[in-house]
């Protein structure tokens, strides 16, 4: 354990592993997880100019998700996250399966909040959106808040009903691995 007399020059975090926790690492918050070869791949989905883009799965990939881009990781979390910070999605392959990481740049001065929401599967309209104060509660706190919002969304069909076309959004995954 570090004491006040210790000078922390650097530290290590495993890439992969079994924890679902976010780790604050200076300017970054990092989530990382290993999944066995039998597990379905996690898929990055983005909304670009209103269109859904599902990024092809590859054994090694690194994608920058620019601030302001609605995105979700299919198989990991069932809400659309639109962040004021840039996020990196990293995939690597080992003999034991895949390692995944989300790396969120929280050091950017412009990054104060994330938006959590959903879009109508029929007409693409936004049907619910909540601003989460990530600067104040951290990325780990923001993810917990998103999980609560998923519960509220799932519990009430009225909240999942598109105000424009009346289509009902299906229930969604809760958060990270706990839902799958």
């Amino acid at each position, binding site marked *: 354990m570090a004491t006040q007399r210790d*000078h*922390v*020059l*650097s*530290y*290590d*975090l*495993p*890439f*992969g592993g079994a924890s679902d926790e976010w780790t604050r*690492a*200076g*300017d*970054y918050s*990092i989530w*990382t997880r290993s999944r066995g070869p039998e597990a379905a791949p996690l898929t990055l*989905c983005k909304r*670009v100019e209103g*269109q*859904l*883009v*599902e*990024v*092809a799965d*590859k*054994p*090694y*990939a*690194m*994608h*920058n998700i*620019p*601030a302001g*881009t609605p995105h979700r990781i299919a198989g990991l979390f069932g809400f659309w996250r639109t962040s004021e*910070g*840039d996020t*990196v999605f*990293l995939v*690597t*392959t*080992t003999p034991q399966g895949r*390692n995944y990481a989300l*790396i969120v*740049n929280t*050091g*950017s*001065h*412009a*990054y104060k909040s994330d938006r959590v929401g959903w879009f109508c599967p029929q007409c693409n309209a936004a049907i619910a959106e909540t601003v989460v104060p990530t600067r104040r509660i951290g990325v780990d706190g923001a993810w917990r808040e998103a999980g609560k919002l998923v519960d509220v969304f799932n519990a009430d069909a009225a909240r999942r009903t598109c105000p424009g076309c009346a289509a009902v959004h299906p229930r969604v995954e809760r958060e990270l691995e706990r839902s799958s």
Partner: protein
Amino acid sequence: MSFRAELVIDEPLEKVLDDSDFLDERMIKAFSTFKSVGSNIFGIRRRAVSSDEIVDPRKGNISVLCELGPNGVNRHQFTSNSFHVLASGVPHRVPHSFGYWHINDMEELFLKFAGAPGQDGYSLVIMRRPTGREGESFASYCESCFTLMYERRVATGRFGLGEFWRAERETVAAYNADPKLRTCPECGHLNPIGYVWNASKDTPEEQQARTQW
């Protein structure tokens, strides 16, 4: 409607970065030094990465990160599949990779991992893009007593990455040209010459120094 992203680079690089896989062979060269994308700076290189060794084809073994603290040099051994987070302000160098101490206002995030069987692995460096008065320094500490002998600061927050590489070359050249700069004012030790990160820029003397420290 959904569609799968395909990478066809027939546009300027800056236009396709947001939709691209940075590890794709057609993209990775853009990150072979460092590239600023949004609020981050990325360095991505293909290297021979095993569980206990990182090897650069030109520089040799670059598995150790030296970090200078109040108690001297901490030699961190890079291992694959481990994020290494270097605190801001810590002088550091990778022997055989760059022959000076780098001091960064930003934290640096390192990650090495093996590639597909029979192929090179990946070496990543990620840091926040500096803004305003933020920047970094090239420094020389006496290898015998760790006295700070020479330091040049670069305002990369104002002038960008281009300034970093120009200043690096100038700093190393000036340091190497003057034995007084390399002589410790405290203990009198004459320190070896430095070398820049890009090995293709080495003079014969710098190439020799790169093999030694």
